């Protein structure tokens, strides 16, 4: 006999095989998911879920596609949370201390309650990356927020109305564009190609017969 678990979706009771994830358990229960399901493998953040185990007080925060059901689980899903996107022009902004203040001033209203960190479905130190952003340390903010999947649960819990994931995203874009040293060799290669420096060699290669091409391929050297 398959082991079953008692779970509650939106407060309603279902019995489901206990080796299912929250997501597949909902499908077992009869839900045809449209919202709250994207990649099904823990990357997209579409499936944020909040649950409480019967008899316990503490809520838990998870991705429905990555979390096994548990006996007595009461689940609510958060397929969407209205984050406050701000438009900015990456060519115009620079990684100055003021730029966060201008674009996401609400981070300075952070009360340090740590609800964001406690609710992170990925176990990230969210409050810390917001602190880095406030301090203008965008490289640290980028690193600390890098694994964020933007499920939005932290923002749903935040008393200061911060859109954490967007703050992390801005810090990462600033880091990628301005703070990490530029890859000179990449720009150089792109310029060389644009100038036509590889055209002749490419034309020559493309003119080869299939047999010649095979010969080249089968005998090519490998970088160690």
């Amino acid at each position, binding site marked *: 006999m398959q082991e079953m678990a008692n779970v509650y979706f939106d407060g309603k009771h279902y019995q489901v095989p206990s080796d299912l994830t929250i997501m597949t358990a909902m499908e077992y229960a009869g839900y*045809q998911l*449209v919202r709250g399901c994207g990649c099904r*493998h823990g*990357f997209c953040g*579409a499936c944020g879920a909040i649950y409480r185990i019967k008899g316990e007080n503490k809520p838990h925060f998870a991705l429905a596609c990555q979390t096994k059901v548990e006996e007595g689980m009461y689940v609510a899903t958060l397929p969407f949370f209205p984050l406050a996107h701000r438009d900015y022009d990456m060519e115009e902004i620079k990684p100055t201390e003021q730029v966060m203040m201008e674009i996401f001033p609400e981070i300075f209203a952070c009360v340090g309650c740590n609800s964001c960190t406690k609710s992170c479905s990925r176990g990230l130190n969210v409050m810390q990356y917001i602190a880095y952003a406030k301090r203008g340390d965008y490289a640290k903010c980028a690193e600390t927020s890098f694994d964020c999947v933007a499920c939005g649960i932290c923002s749903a819990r935040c008393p200061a109305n911060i859109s954490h994931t967007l703050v992390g995203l801005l810090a990462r874009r600033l880091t990628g564009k301005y703070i990490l040293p530029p*890859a000179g060799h990449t720009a150089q290669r*792109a310029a060389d190609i644009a100038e036509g420096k590889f055209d002749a060699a490419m034309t020559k290669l493309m003119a080869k017969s299939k047999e010649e091409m095979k010969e080249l391929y089968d005998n090519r050297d490998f970088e160690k």
Partner: protein
Amino acid sequence: MKPKQMTKPSPFTPHMLESIRKVEATRGVRLQNEPRRLSADEKRVLLDEFHPDYGDKGFSKIEIGPNAGEKAPKELTALLHSKSRISGLDLDLNKIDFDTDVLIIGGGGAGASAAIEAKQAGSDVLIVTKLRMGDSNSMMAEGGIQASDKDNDSPMQHYLDAMGGGHYYNKPELLKHLVMQGAEAIRWLESLGVMFDKHQDGTMMTFPGGGLSRKRLHACADYTGAEITRVLKDEVSNLGIKIVDYTAAVELILDKDGNAAGAVLMNMLTGEYLIARAKTVIIATGGAGRMHYHGFPTTNHYGATADGLVMAYRAGCNLLYQDTIQYHPTGTAYPVQLFGALVTEKVRAVGAMLINVEGEAFVHPLETRDVAASAIIRECHSHKLGVDIPGGAGVWLDTPMIEIIHGEGKIASALPGMLRMFMNYGIDMRQTPVLVYPTFHYQNGGVEIEASGNTSRIHNLFIAGEAAGGIHGRNRLLGNSMLDVIVFGRLAGQSAAKAAKTAKIGSLTLNHVKEYESQIAAAKLDTGDISPILLPKYTRDVNFGKFQ
């Protein structure tokens, strides 16, 4: 990163634990001995016998349309032989809900890249996407993106690798464009703020990969696709491009001259049909993993159901290499909750070997994907040297080798996503190997495109990303898809914006849908289903108990 739950009981069965001990026992010797690469002949024999593409099982013949007489996975053939969702509906094409220059169908990497370029070329752009913007295969790419930007590498070397990898079926003009635009694509992404892994002086870290003769794979830890896609998505928002989420295209609309002129859309949440009129249309709907060809599990996102192929085919476009599918050698085989989920190729690129139940390395870890996948299938089903898992078999991917080769901490820094995924189920891949089996990963073919991302059969229709066919021949190399998404996404955006400047839309029609349906009827093919299916059905039949 700190994985959340560190202390869980070992989930392995006694049979698995016994096999793990054998893997451990041979590790020292294996670290000193790289497995031999197969000869061209050995590869051919292996593929012929064990790759699902090479047999007839699971395929059927397409009976109507431009590819009539050719084979396709039977699930795809069924889509092509099914009725339209709007069959028999009397939709008013004069009631236009959206009017735009460029309509982009699909909100993954290709759609976003196209949107940015089209907008910057001065077009009014509309993106419609089935789930949320960014929910896509692009978000999931882990391993990386290729570009030949190092001194020991060149576009020619990249071309050669991809041409051989694709079994010489790649369309030369398309492949040339891909490799010649590689460095430019990475430069563009860097300028948008994508955080590539770099050395302190800014030099890109580049990694090896299956079938690559140079270390050419650029990465953002093992979140490469997520990092690229979230930046592109943010840029699309910053540019003020209109995005309509949870809205699928269900048929293309043509005008009286037979040119693409929009699409019938469906609100996924309410079922309401909407009409979008556009001067040019870009299909960027991605892959087909959720069709589970040949019964394989998949790495793909929930919306990968070949919609773009179906819509374009009905409108008269031809498919190319629709019979070739990429099975990723290392899908997760265990635990069941992760079944089919990708273990990125980077795991092998940084040193992990493929090992059978007896602890033997049976294939070079960096053979091309089709070869490695076939070798695993052979090891499990012909050699009977797989590890038993509930409902099947798998082989080990010896991940602890990575930490021995590169030092402690390498997995946490280079593969944080993988570490977290397994740790969730009590498997510490730094200490124990993980179990893998091939999984449906990528649709190698698609709607055939020409040099500017256009289709040869319908004017003002462009295809970009995984929905397009021709660039990769009959087998794509890792890291060439994310590159194609950027390069051909941008190209489609530029071409569509240019075409939109002179396009004149005639009166709209859905006659092609009716005509196609009469062909289905004439050939007595009707499957009784409708297509595109938009989403797979995993819901249990609550009245009769069926659940997969």
